[in-house]
C-alpha cells in the first residue's frame, strides 16, 4: 500500500482520537446539492421528510421533544429579535419539517443549528411532533420590525411578487410548503431574502430567486418590513 506519510499520520491521529471519543466531526453539517447546482429541483422527494410527513404526529409529544429547541427559539416559539432565531410559532408543520430536513441533509446551510438538528438528537417522527406543536402555538406579534419608512413600497412589491405564493396576509401555504411570513422577525426576513437573492440560501425556490434578481437592497428592506407587520390571520 502506498500511503503518504501525512495520510498515515492523519489516520493514526484519528485512531488515537477515536479511542477516547466519537469525535466532534458528528456535528459538521453535510453538504448536498442546492440551487447552485444545474438541474436542482426544489423540494424534491426526501425519504426522511416523507417519513415525517406520513407520521401521525402529536402536539403533546412535540411539546416535550421541543425542549432541545427552546433554549434558542424560546418556550413560546417566538424566537429572538435577530437574524438568527426565527419565530416558529404558527408556522406550517410542513414547512418546519421541510426546513429541518433540508438542514439535516445539507441543502440549507446552518452549521450553528446543525448540532441540535441531527438524527441523533431528534428522529423524523419527533420532528413531525415538534412541527405540529409549533403550528398550534399562537404567533407572537411583538416580533422585530423594520423602521416603517417604506411600507408603501413594501406593500406594492409584496402584492405584485410575493402574495401569489405567500398569501395576501402572509399566511403561506401548508400544502405547497410555502412558509408563513406574517409576524416573522424583520432581521430574519431581511437576511433570508438577501441570501435567497444571492443564492446563499441554497434551498430557496428558483421561481422566487428569479423574482428577487431585480430587487435592490432598499426593495428587500421595504418588503421585509412589510411582511414583518402583516397581521397574523386569527385561527
Amino acid at each position, binding site marked *: 500500500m502506498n500511503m503518504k506519510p501525512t495520510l498515515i499520520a492523519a489516520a493514526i491521529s484519528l485512531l488515537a482520537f477515536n479511542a*477516547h471519543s466519537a469525535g466532534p466531526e458528528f*456535528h459538521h453539517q453535510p453538504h448536498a446539492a442546492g440551487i447552485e447546482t444545474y438541474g436542482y429541483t426544489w423540494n424534491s422527494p426526501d425519504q426522511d421528510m416523507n417519513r415525517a410527513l406520513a407520521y401521525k404526529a402529536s402536539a403533546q409529544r412535540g411539546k416535550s421533544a421541543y425542549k432541545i*429547541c*427552546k433554549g434558542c427559539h424560546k418556550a413560546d416559539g417566538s424566537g429572538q429579535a435577530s437574524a438568527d432565531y426565527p419565530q416558529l410559532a404558527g408556522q406550517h408543520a410542513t414547512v418546519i419539517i421541510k426546513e429541518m430536513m433540508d438542514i439535516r441533509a445539507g441543502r440549507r446551510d446552518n452549521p450553528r443549528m446543525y448540532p441540535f438538528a441531527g438524527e441523533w*438528537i431528534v428522529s423524523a417522527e419527533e420532528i413531525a411532533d415538534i412541527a405540529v406543536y409549533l403550528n398550534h402555538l399562537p404567533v407572537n406579534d411583538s416580533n422585530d420590525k423594520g423602521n416603517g419608512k417604506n411600507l408603501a413600497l413594501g406593500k406594492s412589491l409584496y402584492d405584485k411578487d410575493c402574495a401569489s405564493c405567500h398569501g395576501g396576509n402572509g399566511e403561506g401555504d401548508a400544502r405547497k410548503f410555502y412558509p408563513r411570513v406574517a409576524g416573522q422577525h424583520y432581521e430574519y426576513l431581511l437576511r433570508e431574502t438577501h441570501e435567497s437573492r444571492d443564492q446563499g440560501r441554497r434551498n430557496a425556490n428558483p421561481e422566487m430567486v428569479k423574482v428577487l434578481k431585480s430587487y435592490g437592497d432598499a426593495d428587500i428592506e421595504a418588503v421585509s418590513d412589510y411582511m414583518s407587520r402583516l397581521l397574523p390571520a386569527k385561527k
Partner: protein
Amino acid sequence: MTYPTAKFLAAVALLGGGLSLVSAALAESPAATAAANVCAGCHGADGNSVATTFPKLAGQQNKYLLRELMDYKSGKRVSEIMAPLVADLSESDLAELAAYYAKQKPAPGVAGASALMKAGKNLYLKGNSKTDVPSCDGCHEENGNGDGKFPRVAGQHVDYVLDQFRLYAAGKRTNGARVMQAVAERMSEQEARAVAEYMASMP
C-alpha cells in the same frame, strides 16, 4: 475481577467512607449494598456528596441516572473510577440504584458570593445569542430540576460542573444526545464558571 483505581481508594480514604467490596460481592441485594458501602464513600449516604469533584446524586433525575450508570458500564461514558464499580452490577441493580438516589432529598444549593452570579443567571435563562449558546432552562428547566434524560443541575458542585464542561468541549464526554458538546464548545471558560456558580446556588 477489576479493581478500583488508586485514585478512587485515596478519595474514599480521605472521606473516611467505608468501602467494602467484599460485602458487595456477598450481598443478596447488590444495589443496596453498593449504595451503602461503595457509592456512599464518594457520593454520600443520601447522595449529597461533600467532595466537590463528585456529583451530588440526591434528587437527580431517575432516567438520567440510569442512563449514566449504563453508559459507565458499556464504556460510552468514560471514567476510570466508575467503570470498575458498575462492571459487576446488572441493569436491574443499576435501576435500583438510580431510583434510590432519585428519591433522596437534595441538600439546598449554596449561594456563593461570586461576582459572576449575575452573568451566570443571565446565561442560564437567556443564553448568548452572539455565540449561539442556547439558554440552559430549555432542557434543565428554570428551577434547574431537569426532566427525565435532562439532569438536575440545581445545587450541583461547581467543580464537578466545570469538569463536565471541559470534558464536553474537548469531545471526551460523548454519551447521551451530545447536545452539551455543542453547547460547551461555544462557551468561554468565564461563561462556564459563571453558569456553574449560578447552578450551584439554585435551591
